[in-house]
């Protein structure tokens, strides 16, 4: 009997009733370090497209030409908020959460280049890739229509009956060659490597 009275008294305490019926978890605020959709800083975009190239989500980011400047645009619904574009941008145009702070503190960066590979078994030596490449055209305006060239400065040329890649490092990753190859023989791969510089203690 005493215990029943005890329980009734205990549960009728206004404080307990209030907590029981009206308790709410604290309003949940988004922490400042939340890696949200990247936003723009006031730095100027150079239109290097590193951000677009590293984006793992199809259609996540596009760098658009607006009047006289480049503006990266992030598309929610496509972007997966991985933050890679923020890390890849050398200009610091994009920011999200504390990625920039952490990369600055740790001295990390992403190094990327393009790797060209021609599958000799598929390639029929048409030279389309060498001719369509805009950098090739720039380096050697006299480039032959079959992809031959006397210049050593071109990215690639037809030489000795096959495609020879001379200056992979000049490739901008536009993939024009890939789309113009009738056999899918040439592949442009974006290679990315994390780089870390020793921080002074």
């Amino acid at each position, binding site marked *: 009997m005493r215990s029943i009275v005890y329980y009734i008294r205990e549960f009728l305490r206004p404080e307990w009733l209030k907590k029981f019926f009206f308790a709410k978890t604290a309003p949940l605020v988004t922490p400042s370090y939340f890696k949200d959709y990247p936003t723009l800083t006031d730095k100027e975009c150079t239109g290097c497209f590193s951000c677009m190239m590293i984006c793992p989500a199809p259609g996540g980011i596009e760098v658009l030409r607006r009047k006289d400047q480049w503006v990266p645009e992030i598309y929610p619904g496509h972007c*997966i908020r991985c933050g890679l574009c923020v890390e890849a941008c050398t200009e610091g145009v994009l920011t999200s959460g504390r990625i920039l702070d952490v990369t600055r503190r740790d001295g990390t960066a992403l190094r990327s280049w393009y790797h060209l590979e021609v599958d000799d078994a598929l390639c029929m030596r048409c030279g389309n890739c060498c001719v369509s490449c805009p950098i090739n055209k720039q380096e050697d305006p006299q480039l032959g229509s079959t992809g031959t060239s006397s210049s050593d400065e071109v990215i690639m040329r037809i030489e000795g009956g096959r495609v020879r890649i001379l200056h992979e490092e000049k490739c901008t990753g536009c993939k024009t060659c890939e789309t113009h190859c009738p056999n899918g023989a040439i592949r442009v791969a974006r290679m990315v490597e994390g780089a870390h510089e020793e921080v002074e203690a």
Partner: protein
Amino acid sequence: MSILQDIKNAVRSRSIHVSYVDVGSCNGCDIEVLACLAPRYDIEQYGIYVHNNPREADVLLVIGSVTPQWVDKLRNIWDKIPEPKVAVAIGNCPISGCVYNRRGSLINPPVSKYIPIAAQVPGCPPRPTEILSAILSVAPLIFKDYEESKS
């Protein structure tokens, strides 16, 4: 009529039943929906109850980028939900197909092609708070004065 409607409004605002369906995704969004149930976010304190029965649901959370096998089944589920009802797309997948939207993948987004979607919560995955606030903000739009606006 209007008193009855007021009662219905009051009840409905505290009793939103949610059913969710994953039509082909990585399960990341499912985990975030389940995180809403956990004490940290505690979806039930807002009167939202998650249990997977379309027949007693008000809100359908659609997750995933719609694989061919789901096309007719998603429609079935949607038809089973009694009026008034609302579908919310959770995550990038139902909006764009997200990272699966590539050559050679067997998906067919967006979900809005198959059932009417009232709200989208982008993110891969969205935060539980984003899911919560989406449900809370879309539910009154659909359920408030439902009978009166229908007639």
